């Protein structure tokens, strides 16, 4: 890979119960997070294509790590999300270059498909900054039970000249969904929305 990785972290959380009620099946959520060098830290760079390519590399790499940590086949993943945090010498646009143009296609390839928009968030911050990765159903963005968020952080990143890039995948939505809306069983799967 061309991207310069300092550190990779995977996190899996598994919810067994909520508010005293059993959650069955248990819900698992996995994130894979890379800490990479920001080639444009400290300068204004008009052409961000290098970071766009970094996004393409990381999309597949991190998705594979996250799915492996989740422990299910890629096509069984139910929801997904992505996020990035740029260190203090970088620019929010650097996160956008990684996340938006090319990261999605290789990410979806690991999952078989994924018709829905991959929800995302981005920020600039110091070491240990919290990333709240938004989550949505991978085939129909309007599935209300799967609107969720996963908090991740790496204690010693991003340093000033680094970027933290994260993707998340899950085995399901919120532990005890009961606010209605479009259900998984009602997905038409034509437009990525419903």
């Amino acid at each position, binding site marked *: 890979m061309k991207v310069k990785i*300092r*550190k*990779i*972290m995977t996190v899996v959380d*598994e*919810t067994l119960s909520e508010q005293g009620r059993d959650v069955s099946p248990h819900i698992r959520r996995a994130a894979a997070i890379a800490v990479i060098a920001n080639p444009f830290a400290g300068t204004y760079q008009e052409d961000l294509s290098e970071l766009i390519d970094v996004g393409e590399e990381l999309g597949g790499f991190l998705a594979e790590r996250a799915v492996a940590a989740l422990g299910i086949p890629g096509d069984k993943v139910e929801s997904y999300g992505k996020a990035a945090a740029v260190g203090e010498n970088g620019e929010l646009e650097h996160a956008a270059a990684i996340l938006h143009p090319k990261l999605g296609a290789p990410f979806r390839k690991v999952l078989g498909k994924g018709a829905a928009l991959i929800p995302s968030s981005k920020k600039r911050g110091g070491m240990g900054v919290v990333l709240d990765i938004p989550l949505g159903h991978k085939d129909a963005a309007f599935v209300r039970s799967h609107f969720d968020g996963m908090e991740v952080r790496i204690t010693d990143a991003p340093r000033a000249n680094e970027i933290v890039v994260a993707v998340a995948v899950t085995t399901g939505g919120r532990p005890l969904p009961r606010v209605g809306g479009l259900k998984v069983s009602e997905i038409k799967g034509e437009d990525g929305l419903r």
Partner: protein
Amino acid sequence: MPDVRVRKFLVSVEEIHHEGGPVVAVPPRRGTVLAVIENPYAGSYHADIQPFMEDLKPLGLAMAQKLLAALGGDPKAVEGYGKGAIVGEAGELEHAALWHAPGGYAMRDVLGGARAIVPSTKKVGGPGARLDIPVTHVNASYVRSHFDAIEVGVPDAPKANEMVVALVMTTGPRVHARAGGLAAADIKGEDGLR
């Protein structure tokens, strides 16, 4: 685990390629496993709390196995360890001390013959509280290259009547260890210290 109610597990693995120095051929990994459990003694003073220590033993073993699996499953690959606990606000620091025996012995069981005391730390804290868990070499506490620490926490735990119990393991020294002292190669292995 008849008397231990687990709400959530969280497993993380970091893989460190460098920290500003040369990229290492075999990146050391640092793994953690956390369980969010109900604190049976929350809310009032109980003189006799030791029965819960017995109850925690199967959980400790299950967590140590989960952590080892996340690190690849080879007990010989594990070179450092540590443990810790965070007690929610309706509990007492003393409740965290119940984790010493079940957490420590579980890791020794799974690793087979680790000699060094398992370093530990504890605190009382709210949801999202972070804990810096100390790490030392599994066979000789004085090995300087393996003195390390891993920050852990769960965004939504511990609630007031919960505890977070944690185990951590590492597969190598600090990535650019060069502060001298006892080297892993010079361990005598008699007393767990040197």
